[in-house]
């Protein structure tokens, strides 16, 4: 078998694939964070919890109501999106206009509550969810084995990332959103319901996280604390990409997944820290991130 730096090629490809999949999750999550931050200037510390809610909802809906994967793929994000809108309407709205730091602290509290309550009900050992039948098996690409489900995750995540980017950067609705955050009074003068727009934006960002959660349910262990670690990684991804840059978040997300996969192949002990190392280096060279504009 061919080797590279003492590592079999098959292992390398395998880790690269895992890297791209992780990267797809990072991209979806950091995209949601970037949308919420870029448009609302809210750092959503509850983002990991929303991702967790999406995955938990998928499992719970299946176990209790027999809701299948495809329905969950729509239903779970919608439910979590509603939770998001409620959080925005009842909590975040009250501190609009205060220092942005308070939105971070508030969502941190919300995350603690959600995570704590679900831990009490379901424990931290992890729930099981099986891969939908359509995606069982895989295809041999000659140099590696590609499970169908993993391929689907990559395709679905990238598609959703592209649609979101297109919607915000290229459509009229996106233009309203961007204008509403630029000068909300003026936009309201034009007859646009800005508070509603804000609620919906937060709900939408949170839906992206929940969608990632549904995708994650069959391949990761579903626990109430699953969002807590990935959230910090995603924060680092967003800093590397440049806060508020939507395209940057997507590209950096996938890139960082790959970097992590490569590190796991060649120097495993550093794999969980490598993204933070990259962040330190990027901050030293480009303080505004790879895709950030000069502040």
């Amino acid at each position, binding site marked *: 078998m061919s080797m590279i730096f003492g590592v079999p090629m098959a292992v390398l490809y395998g880790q690269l694939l895992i890297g791209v999949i992780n990267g797809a999750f990072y991209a979806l999550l950091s995209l949601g964070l970037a949308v919420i931050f870029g448009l609302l200037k809210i750092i959503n510390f509850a983002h990991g919890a929303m991702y967790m809610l999406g995955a938990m909802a998928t499992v719970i809906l299946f176990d209790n109501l027999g809701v299948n994967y495809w329905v969950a793929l729509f239903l779970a994000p919608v439910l979590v999106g509603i939770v998001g809108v409620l959080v925005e309407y009842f*909590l975040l709205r009250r501190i609009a206009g205060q220092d942005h730091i308070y939105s971070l602290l508030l969502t941190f509290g919300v995350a603690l509550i959600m*995570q704590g309550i679900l831990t009490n009900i379901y424990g931290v050992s992890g729930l099981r969810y099986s891969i939908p039948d359509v995606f069982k098996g895989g295809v041999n690409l000659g140099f590696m084995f590609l499970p169908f489900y993993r391929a689907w995750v990559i395709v679905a995540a990238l598609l959703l990332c592209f649609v979101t980017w297109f919607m915000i950067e290229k459509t009229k609705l996106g233009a309203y959103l961007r204008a509403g955050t630029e000068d909300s009074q003026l936009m309201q003068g034009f007859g646009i319901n800005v508070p509603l727009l804000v609620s919906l934006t937060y709900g939408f960002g949170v839906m992206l996280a929940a969608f990632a959660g549904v995708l994650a349910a069959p391949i990761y262990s579903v626990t109430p604390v699953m969002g807590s670690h990935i959230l910090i990684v995603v924060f680092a991804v967003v800093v590397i990409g440049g806060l508020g840059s939507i395209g940057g978040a997507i590209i950096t997300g996938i890139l960082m997944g790959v970097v992590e996969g490569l590190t796991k192949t060649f120097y495993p002990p550093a794999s969980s820290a490598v993204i933070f190392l990259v962040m330190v280096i990027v901050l030293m060279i480009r303080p505004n991130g790879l895709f950030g504009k000069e502040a």
Partner: protein
Amino acid sequence: MSQIDIQSDIQQTILKQQKIDSRRKWILNGVLLVLLLLAPFVMYPVFLMKILCFALFAVAFNLLFGFTGLLSFGHAAFLATGGYTTGYLLSNFSGLTTEMGVIAGTLMATVLGLGFALLSIRRQGIYFAMVTLALAQLVFFFFVQASFTGGEDGMHGVPRGELFGLINLEDNLNLYYVVLTVFLGCYLLVQRIVSSPYGHVLKAIKQNEPRAISLGYKVDRYKILAFVMSAALAGLAGSMKSVVFELASLNDAHWHMSGEVILMTLIGGMGTLLGPVLGATLVVNIEYQLGQGPLRDWVDPILGGIFVITVLAFRSGIVGEVQKFVRKNMG
């Protein structure tokens, strides 16, 4: 009455008021001091020392957050670095006296603080929070991987040793008064810092950074210094904590700890001197009391709820609200 008379009258009233204020303060401080000195005869000293360590941690954090306006979400890194350094040195070099271990831990945290500051200081607000959080996570992973920390198990059996090679710290009461002295010293130091001209520049930076810059202050230097001092005090708190509990663990490095110190400071009153102390006392007590009772499993969601309520309803914290009330009603 001539105008000069009125003015001197006003001045005298102000002076009188200041005298009353300062007398009130002295009485309050005196009462608190007596209470602290007598406390270990009523309560379990180790629990009191836990409160003091967290109070110092919160005071350190507040120097940066409350007085300079920089929200660090990575202060757990300094607490843990202080703790692990002290724990490692005291466990492996029997010739070291306790205070040398604690000083070394503090120095290590100071150096780390300088590194953090240099990397993060150009960011502001939430950007700053995220960068410090990610840096602290890097430190966390280092502690997870490094062999000397004992990984998930933590570092057990740190010897308390003897202060200056003379005073036996195995005795809880002795150790309590040492910790209390260190705490009070740091508290007074922070009080001195924030009331000094330097402290006023920090407050100016917090309130209006562009103006502070245009007045000619080298803002970054002020902020870096504040960050380093805050990190040093947080490291000191961690060092003492490892001596008190004879243990250094990953819990101290986890980002939940960074969140907890924010909660302590916020609930007590950020930007006040006594606030973080009160907040730490409250949070440690809440965690302990809940941990004993039927709500044992609900500590996290309850703390989260307190967080939400504090942010929504009383952002200036308990001490801040009391100050407002006193100012309004007792003139």
